[in-house]
């Protein structure tokens, strides 16, 4: 937009047109105090703190030109009354006065009024020290009040707005920042005003109260201490805290957090600004879900099984035992009798060393980062191959971009994406949400459509066909192969046939395809429900992105919402049986988690090392297998069900006690720092792995240089497996066996940068660059208005990796696997719904534990009627695998033909009935008595 | 003539006569000193770095611990520096109270310093006990005003923390009344005293030019005959309102410094008497009520100096606009006065080293910081 010239307090400068007076003055370095105004929200002019004098050039009614005074300068017509700066946009030649007596009189008056009922309890108020009301009173306020001190309104002190947020109505200045945040940004309009006059107050309108995943942010933006979080209330004063920069590992967004520590204790979690990841917000899971790091049940010493019991041992003893046992298995049964499972919440360094140890010492490819449940979905490769291009920043995207969300519920899987997508919408982007069932994001969608349960692949094929019909492959700028195969596959299914299969009208499919083609930038986000359709889904979405030209450029590509904080890192690091780091496919694959359990029981695998996963809690098969195993090593934070079955339990350091890097859903590698001392004797995972390696070399175990496996495909291709046939094979130089003497994770990161394709240049020092971290933060003249909102990012905003096809010489295969006919032998499709507050180990000890639901199965009204089921009835599910008894819920949002169960709840497992990512079940009411 | 060989010996760092942990590497030829190298730093405690981590106000009690004999003087120099940096006015009464405290400090410092000097000469504790007895009376006054005898922490930006207790002025008058008797007795016993003359006269001569070159200050400089006193050269606070003289020596030996200190005690008494006469009444206020203690000075730097009992004490502060000093530097008189020790000792006997050191009057807390 064009710039306009304005004069503020006699200083003339140019600002973009459309800016409001508050922001415009700030551009010129002049502060106008505000309470209700917040740059991320629309102005409302409620608090009156930003009153200023505004004048515009007087226009000659005849010529519409500014009238000139005797001195040749335009005559300024000052508005008769003060104007609120936040709601007044600047115009050409505008004159603003923020310091006149009149303005100061108004500012003092507003503050005097605000303080008539505000209690002077700053010493006990949690906001004290980072309180905009304090700041502004000191800077602009009157020295004293003419109001009777005893006339203040008193309310009962804390009111629970929800489980997590408490309201102190006396302190509230009714700026509506919280209400507007919930309405405008989070789209959870659960807060509102009640009553009037001096009893005007904020209330929660929802049931359960304050039902929002983003409620914690309201405590940040509250300019007074009215909203406090139950998590931080009366824990510490803000000036005592030292903030430690870490990265959230609870979901694939990878929000930048600041752990506010007092000495070694975690007091609260605050967002750290990163425009490319979380802006200035975080979700409640990140904010309140970090209490696990100081939970009293954390493991503090290594445990060794002696005489059937786990007893405390020294590190040396435990590591030596692990090395000895594993070496014994290797020498007697070969390395392939050892399997390793590592959690996707570990850092890249841990995961890299884990697979390196297995591949280098044991020559074993029996690696996985999933628990080995029947419901485990295929490894997602297209999220990396066709992932969003380097330089993608959702903060900068708006008009002319389109986001297609398919088979995902970002609210539960990666909550912060809701805020980010909504902000894009606000800037003019289009949002197409395609799901089998309604989600909260639908309310924001420009186009929402529901396909028949289980038909998402047909829907995507329909889209592909519609795109192909329109533009063919003319937008396909990538080197590619298999175009003919694609043409043939697509010709099998017309848009109309697809529409029939998926229940979405053909016109709608064509319209979405058209919109995707028209958009300059396009993001395709897919989640757990889409991925449960199999690898064909991400493959099809990859081809869709390629055909529409939405690949390999900033702002376009795929975003896969994978479980855990670092699934992408686990895939990149090759913690999987069929590929080395960087998606280098192995010609001979090892055993994945799903195959490890039967192999353990059959004795083909003797020893298993589990880092940070708890398969025994969920999977009876894994439990039985672990009981049968010769030797089980578990490195964990807690004594989990799996750890209880282990022969050696090694206490691992949590994310707060170590350094590491994590790769998020947009393939941004971010660095997390150490926030506190080690918990007991717990060690970072990479040190544990290195410790075992060192003990192994002391046993002089020959390093299993995989000479027989030199023949490998260097071609990074996705999901084709053997069907693709042998790719271009080259001899890979096997690196010298390393000495395993890394001193710091940065040394491992340097090795990753050297050896893992795509990670070149990802060094710790590069990650610490703050670059374009964002325009927000504790800038000198902003701090006092938005104090306590977040922390300036001084520790690095991370680096986005290029996706694998950028600059890649090899061709992308366009071949698609055939569409399988859905089986219909049982009446309902069992869908596991990912929940934000689930049985994740890391939620232990947090206030969110209360919000974890009891196990249930949700049905549509139609199905419930058909099966004569009332809410609360006990029902039995049966599938080809087995039976499961659950309590039933009847929910509007569930489509007919679906039995929706929450995934990964504590003490509950659907493994008994699951036959794969998709299971068909029958459901019967259990009549008791 | 016997052929002799040079020998290096250490005096200190642990030695009863080094006034703290201070080390001198002395090269001797027989009994004669050919070279002396002072070694500082044994009491280094990061004073300036700590001060840069603290708020401006939090440094006030830390300045007490520089020259722990003269906490009031340190307070004044630091308070003046911050007041100049921020631009805080100090009420008149507060200025008088400040001068009162610093001049009392000067008396107690010199009483102590002379006591220690005589002690160093081997005349044992008698003189020291005399000095300590007088010092005690002043410390008692300090305690009644500030709440502490040594680490007074009495000054604040814009004044002093509390006004005087009601009985302070009568007790001060009593003290000043009795003071000439003490000083006269001191002088009567020691002036032209045989032992003192033998140990002090012509010993440790610091010539004028050398004194200037080393930029020493305080009684050491004035003992060398240079009438330089910050109170006269650049009057601060309300010193321009008082009538007092600056005593100077002639030769610059230990004896001259001794005489200068005795006379300075008398001059301080003169100033104190004028302070009592001119002291504005309590309505003047002991502190500027508008002065915020939690200061955030504008970006800039300042150097403020006073004539502390030991010499010119200066604070150099750089503000970056935050609540903590960006740079905090102390110009410590003890440290700078100690630097010419080698030149002062060369040619004298080993036994003279402790006397010369004692005549400089150092406090290691200020030397090493």
């Amino acid at each position: 937009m064009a710039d306009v010239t304005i004069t503020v307090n006699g200083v003339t400068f140019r600002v973009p047109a459309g800016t409001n007076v508050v922001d415009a003055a700030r551009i010129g370095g002049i502060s106008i105090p505000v309470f209700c105004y917040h740059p991320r929200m629309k102005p409302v002019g409620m608090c009156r703190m930003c009153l200023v004098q505004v004048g515009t050039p007087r226009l000659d009614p005849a010529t519409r030109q500014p009238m000139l005074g005797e001195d040749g300068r335009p005559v300024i017509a000052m508005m008769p009354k003060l104007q609120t700066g936040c709601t007044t946009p600047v115009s050409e030649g505008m004159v603003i006065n923020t310091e006149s007596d009149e303005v100061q009189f108004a500012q003092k008056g507003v503050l005097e009024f605000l303080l008539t009922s505000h209690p002077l309890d700053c010493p006990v108020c949690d906001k004290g020290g980072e309180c905009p009301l304090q700041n502004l009173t000191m800077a602009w306020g009157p020295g004293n009040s003419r109001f009777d001190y005893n006339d203040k309104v008193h309310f009962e002190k804390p009111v629970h707005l929800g489980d997590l947020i408490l309201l102190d109505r006396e302190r509230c200045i009714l700026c509506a920042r919280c209400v507007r945040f919930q309405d405008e940004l989070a789209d959870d309009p659960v807060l509102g005003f009640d009553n009037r006059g001096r009893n005007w107050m904020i209330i929660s309108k929802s049931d359960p109260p304050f039902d929002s995943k983003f409620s914690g942010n309201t405590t940040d933006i509250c300019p007074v201490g009215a909203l406090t979080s139950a998590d931080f209330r009366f824990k510490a004063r803000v000036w005592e805290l030292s903030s430690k920069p870490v990265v959230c590992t609870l979901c694939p967004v990878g929000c930048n957090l600041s752990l506010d520590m007092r000495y070694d204790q975690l007091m609260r979690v605050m967002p750290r600004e990163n425009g490319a990841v979380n802006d200035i917000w975080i979700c409640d899971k990140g904010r309140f879900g970090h209490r696990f790091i100081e939970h009293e049940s954390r493991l503090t010493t290594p445990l060794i099984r002696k005489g059937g019991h786990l007893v405390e041992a020294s590190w040396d003893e435990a590591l030596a035992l692990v090395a000895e046992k594993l070496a014994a298995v290797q020498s007697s049964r070969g390395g392939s009798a050892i399997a390793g499972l590592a959690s996707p919440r570990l850092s890249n360094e841990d995961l890299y060393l884990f697979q390196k140890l297995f591949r280098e010492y044991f020559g074993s490819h029996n690696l996985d980062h999933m628990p080995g449940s029947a419901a485990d979905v295929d490894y997602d490769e297209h999220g990396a191959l066709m992932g969003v291009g380097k330089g993608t920043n959702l903060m900068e995207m708006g008009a002319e971009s389109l986001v297609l969300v398919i088979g995902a519920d970002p609210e539960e899987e990666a909550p912060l994406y809701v805020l980010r997508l909504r902000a894009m919408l606000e800037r003019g982007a289009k949002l197409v949400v395609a799901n089998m069932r309604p989600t909260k994001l639908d309310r924001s969608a420009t186009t929402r459509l529901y396909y028949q349960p289980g038909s998402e692949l047909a829907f995507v094929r329909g889209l592909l066909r519609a795109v192909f019909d329109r533009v063919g492959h003319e937008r396909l700028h990538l080197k590619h192969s298999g175009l003919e195969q694609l043409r043939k596959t697509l010709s099998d299914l017309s848009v109309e046939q697809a529409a029939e299969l998926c229940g979405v009208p053909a016109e709608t499919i064509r319209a979405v395809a058209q919109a995707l083609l028209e958009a300059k930038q396009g993001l395709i986000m897919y989640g757990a429900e889409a991925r449960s359709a199999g690898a064909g889904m991400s493959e099809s979405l990859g081809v869709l992105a390629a055909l529409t030209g939405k690949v390999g450029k900033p702002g376009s590509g795929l975003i896969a919402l994978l479980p855990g904080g670092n699934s992408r890192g686990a895939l990149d690091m090759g913690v999987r049986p069929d590929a080395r780091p960087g998606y280098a496919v192995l010609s001979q694959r090892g055993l994945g988690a799903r195959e490890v359990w039967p192999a353990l029981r059959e004795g083909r695998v003797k020893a298993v090392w589990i880092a940070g996963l708890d398969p025994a809690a969920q999977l009876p098969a894994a439990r039985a297998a672990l009981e049968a195993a010769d030797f089980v090593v578990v490195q964990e934070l807690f004594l989990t069900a799996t750890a209880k079955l282990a022969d050696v339990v090694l206490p691992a350091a949590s994310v707060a006690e170590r350094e590491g890097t994590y790769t998020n859903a947009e393939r941004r590698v971010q660095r997390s720092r150490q926030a506190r001392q080690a918990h007991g004797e717990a060690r970072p995972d990479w040190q544990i792995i290195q410790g075992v390696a060192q003990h192994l070399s002391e046993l002089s175990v020959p390093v299993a240089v995989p000479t027989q496996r030199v023949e490998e495909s260097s071609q990074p291709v996705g999901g084709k497996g053997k069907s693709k046939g042998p790719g271009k094979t080259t001899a890979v130089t096997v690196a010298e066996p390393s000495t395993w003497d890394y001193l710091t994770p940065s040394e491992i990161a340097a090795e990753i940068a050297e050896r893992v394709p795509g990670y070149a240049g990802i060094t710790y020092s590069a990650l610490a660059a703050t670059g374009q971290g964002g325009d927000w933060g504790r800038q000198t003249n902003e701090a006092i208005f938005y104090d306590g909102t977040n922390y300036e990012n001084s520790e690095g905003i991370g680096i986005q990796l290029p996706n694998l096809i950028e600059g890649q010489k090899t061709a992308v295969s366009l071949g698609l696997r055939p569409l399988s006919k859905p089986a219909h032998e049982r009446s309902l499709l069992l869908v596991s719904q990912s929940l934000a507050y689930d049985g994740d180990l890391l939620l232990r000890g947090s206030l969110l534990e209360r919000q974890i639901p009891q196990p249930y199965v949700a049905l549509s009204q139609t199905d419930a009627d058909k099966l004569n089921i009332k809410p609360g009835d006990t029902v039995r599910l049966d599938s080809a695998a087995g039976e499961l008894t659950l309590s039933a819920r009847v929910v509007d949002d569930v489509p007919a033909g679906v039995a929706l169960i929450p995934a990964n709840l504590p003490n509950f497992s659907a493994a008994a009935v699951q036959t794969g990512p998709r299971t068909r079940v029958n459901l019967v009411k259990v009549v008791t008595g | 003539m016997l052929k002799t060989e040079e020998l290096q010996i250490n005096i200190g760092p642990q030695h009863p006569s080094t006034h703290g942990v201070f080390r001198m590497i002395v090269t001797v030829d027989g009994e004669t000193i050919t070279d002396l190298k002072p070694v500082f730093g044994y009491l280094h405690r990061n004073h300036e770095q700590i001060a840069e981590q603290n708020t401006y106000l939090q440094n006030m009690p830390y300045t007490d611990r520089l020259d722990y004999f003269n906490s009031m003087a340190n307070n004044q120099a630091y308070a003046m520096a911050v007041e100049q940096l921020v631009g805080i006015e100090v009420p008149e009464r507060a200025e008088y109270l400040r001068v009162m405290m610093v001049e009392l400090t000067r008396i107690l410092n010199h009483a102590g310093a002379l006591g220690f000097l005589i002690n160093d000469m081997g005349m044992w504790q008698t003189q020291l006990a005399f000095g300590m007895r007088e010092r005690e009376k002043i410390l008692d006054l300090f305690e009644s005003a500030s709440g502490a005898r040594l680490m007074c922490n009495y000054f604040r930006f814009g004044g002093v923390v509390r006004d005087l207790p009601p009985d302070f002025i009568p007790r001060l008058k009593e003290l000043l009344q009795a003071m000439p008797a003490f000083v006269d007795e001191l002088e009567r016993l020691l002036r032209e005293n045989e032992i003192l003359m033998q140990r002090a006269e012509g010993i440790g001569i610091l010539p004028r030019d050398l004194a200037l070159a080393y930029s020493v200050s305080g009684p050491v400089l004035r003992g060398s005959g240079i009438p330089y006193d910050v109170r006269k050269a650049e009057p601060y606070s309300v010193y321009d309102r008082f009538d007092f003289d600056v005593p100077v020596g002639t030769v610059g030996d230990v004896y001259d410094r001794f005489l200068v200190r005795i006379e300075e005690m008398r001059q301080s008494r003169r100033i104190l008497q004028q302070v009592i006469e001119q002291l504005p009444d309590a309505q003047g206020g002991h502190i500027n009520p508008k002065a915020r203690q939690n200061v955030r000075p504008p970006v800039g730097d300042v150097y403020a100096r006073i004539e502390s009992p030991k010499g010119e004490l200066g604070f150099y502060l750089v503000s970056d606009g935050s609540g903590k000093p960006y740079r905090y530097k102390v110009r410590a008189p003890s440290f700078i006065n100690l630097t010419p020790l080698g030149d002062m000792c060369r040619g004298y006997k080993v036994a003279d080293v402790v006397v010369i050191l004692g005549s400089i009057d150092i406090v290691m807390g200020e030397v090493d910081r």
Partner: protein
Amino acid sequence: MIGQLLKGLRTTFGYIFTQPVTVQYPEVKRPVRERFRGRHELKRFADGKERCIGCSLCAAACPADAILVVPAENTPDHQVSYGERYAATYEINMLRCIFCGYCEDACPTNAIVLEHQYELSFYDRRDSIYTKEMLLVPEDQGHGDAPPILTQLERRPSPPAQIDL
């Protein structure tokens, strides 16, 4: 020479008849002045409630970082002080404390006062941590009524009738 000796001895004999200025510590203890800054005490109000509201301003003012306050929330059954907050832990490290008195100055409720006790020796460094139990005065030694600012912090019911005075 003889003259000088006699002159010195005259002084010596003169002091025989004066009172000694020293006191025989520890048998005799020198009284301290009113403003003396010694060991801290945490005061109470006359009704036995603690004055300390756990605001940590003393810890913020402390130049030596000697004070640790861990606050907690008052509940109706466990009302330790007026208002919502009280100090669950209050510790002063007497090895760090420099007795500057800033904690006194910072305290909004005059809860912490430097009293006249100055004999603070201990044989073990760990004993230098003075806990809240050691610092707090007995309940019957409280004095003064809570100022309005604190009573205002008390929970009050909120029927509209009470607001309209």
